[in-house]
């Protein structure tokens, strides 16, 4: 799993702090003026402001803020990732897989008794054309 890189890289860190500020401010305005969720907008503005301070004063406090925000992001990610994965799994695998199995999907040829009846497990290999090398699939 990719992890935040805490090795100092001032250029990259400044760029990310700037991005965080702009994205945070944009989302904050949307939440405040369109959705009118004032409490959430305040929290978002707070984080956006922290990014701004880090970016504008990078030489003095930028790295500290960057590391703190990353550590916070990592902690939140640790909490959210399993939930997001469980949701993805529930919708994409459990639900769809259950349905597909009901309809008899058996690409893996799971039935050993039926496999035993076959003379071979070989299939024709797909042909490769020159253009195929340019694709990942």
């Amino acid at each position, binding site marked *: 799993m990719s992890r935040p890189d805490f090795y100092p890289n001032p250029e990259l860190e400044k760029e990310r702090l700037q991005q965080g500020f702009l994205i945070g401010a944009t989302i904050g305005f949307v939440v405040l003026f369109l959705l009118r969720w004032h409490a959430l907008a305040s929290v978002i503005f707070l984080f956006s402001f922290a990014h701004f301070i880090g970016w504008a004063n990078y030489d003095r406090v930028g790295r500290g803020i960057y590391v703190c925000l990353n550590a916070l992001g990592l902690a939140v990610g640790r909490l959210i990732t399993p939930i997001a994965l469980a949701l993805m799994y529930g919708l994409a695998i459990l639900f*769809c897989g259950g349905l597909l199995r009901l309809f008899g999907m058996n690409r*893996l040829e799971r039935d050993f008794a039926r496999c035993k009846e076959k003379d071979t497990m070989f299939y024709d290999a797909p042909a490769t054309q020159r253009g195929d090398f*340019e694709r990942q699939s």
Partner: protein
Amino acid sequence: MATTILGISAFYHDSAACLVRNGEIIAAAEEERFSRVKGDSRFPRKAVEFCLAQAGLTPAQLDAVAYYDKPIQTFSRLLQSYLEYPLSSFPSFRVSMPLWIHQKLKIPKLIDANLSGYAGPIYFSRHHESHAASAFFCSPFEEAALLVVDAVGEWAVTSIGEGKGNELRLISESRFPHSLGLFYSAMTQYLGFKVNQDEYKVMGLAPYGEPKYEALLRERVIDLKKDGSLALNLDYFQYPYGLQMIHPRLEELLGRKARAANEPVERFHMDVAASAQSVTVESMIRLARAAKNMTGMKNLCLAGGVALNCVGNGAIYREGLFDDIYIQPAAGDAGGAIGAALQTWHQVMVKPRPNPLRDMMQGAYLGPDIETDGCKDYLRGLDCEFLEFSEEDLPKRIAAWIAAGYAIGLCRGRMEFGPRALGARSILADPRDPEAQSRINLKIKFRESFRPFAPMILEERVGEYFKLDIPSPYMLLVMPLREEKRLNREENAGREGFDKLNAVRSDIPAVTHVDYSVRVQTVNSERNPFAWRVVKEFEALTGCPMVVNTSFNVRGEPIVCDHEDAYYCFRMTGLDILVLGDCVVVKPGVDLEAPPREFASVEALST
């Protein structure tokens, strides 16, 4: 103008990089040798750096990058497996999805990020085509049957094809999850060894046992077809959807829990290993026969992780189905880097193969070189006393030290590519010494006492010991010792399990396995000039045309790469002498002028 292609294999296991210039392999290395992480699967950043430095290039000067796999096809196979096991695949899903989302589905981005300045195309070969290309395009054959057997690549687990000139075509394939490689890995896990790393331990353990469970396995677990393809009973395995290879039902079937890594190896485990090995060998022979029948070719090229099963390779050779066999020395995933690069050269850029054809692997000496000056500076920096010998004198000295009973760590010339040490990063010892096997296993390599060693034998004398008419330069054929070279057959037949280790089986006991088999590496003066001279000098001193050759590492560590790794390993182990380039470091108590030891010949021992 020269065309350079960088081949990359990564993100599964044994990541590696290779640089091909105008169809010639300039450099190749596995990442683990630099990172010192065994089986390192990360992007091969250091291996790429080495390859580029070897050719004096920057990434911007590359003409193409070739990746050895089709990641989206592999991802679709993974999703399909999860969909077919919706109630049990969450643990594997939870582990693998973040990896796929952050890494494996972003291969072009990762390549761009690691090859700053490169703006050329990225080509993707199919996994089994990379393997097939790594064997065929490196072989000296104009045309050949191709057999790829490994765990899995995209959907394919075994492929048969043919190569002609600069083209290769896969004809048939069997598909996941019915895989010989995965079956063998599952049995490796059952026996308490590491998957994707320790399969060769199962192969080494098998001769101690009897294939008592083969019939049971073939009835309930694995259905072997006449053409070598197979169906697995997935009730006994979890690998299609889980984090473990085996299902508890396999333990119930075999009547015992899987062995934990710290538990002793017992007779039962030897018998299970023998059974798994026997099924594997039978399957490999049938597959080779099917390849012969499908293609009608006279030569065979083998690749894929299962092609590192040298017992199976030897059995295929002895079947006499083919005139000649070429096995890619880096038959596992690392070799895919070479295959992808060569396939790009021959099939994307449509370039001809060299004329005359030859073994493109150059003895597998494709890694970083050892500079004697660098070694001297390093040793001086450590205040370490060392001797220096000329290149002409050194082989004679090394041979004399081996004959005197010393174990030598040899780190000289370009490092080998692939899992075998072939005389550049090797530990050498006297094969006539009955104590050598246990001494090297226990005091130098700190590994299991049952593991056999291989000899490096003069190509011109290999026929005296084995019925072998083709060279085996990459230590990938196991051959039975000739009958006339065997000792104490009746006495040995009565021994069981590890007690077999106590018997003297030949006058080269350190390299004769308990079933009188030997994993052979042949050396000649062209392919391996330095190693050949060492063995030649040893022969002149003792009459014995071989020395023990085992990889220069300790248990669980990658083979040493540079002088620092070699010196560290030397200091940490019971090695007596270290050869670094032309420098020699000696442990206290070693007598460099000691005379050669005498051992009785097989003729004297049999009377």
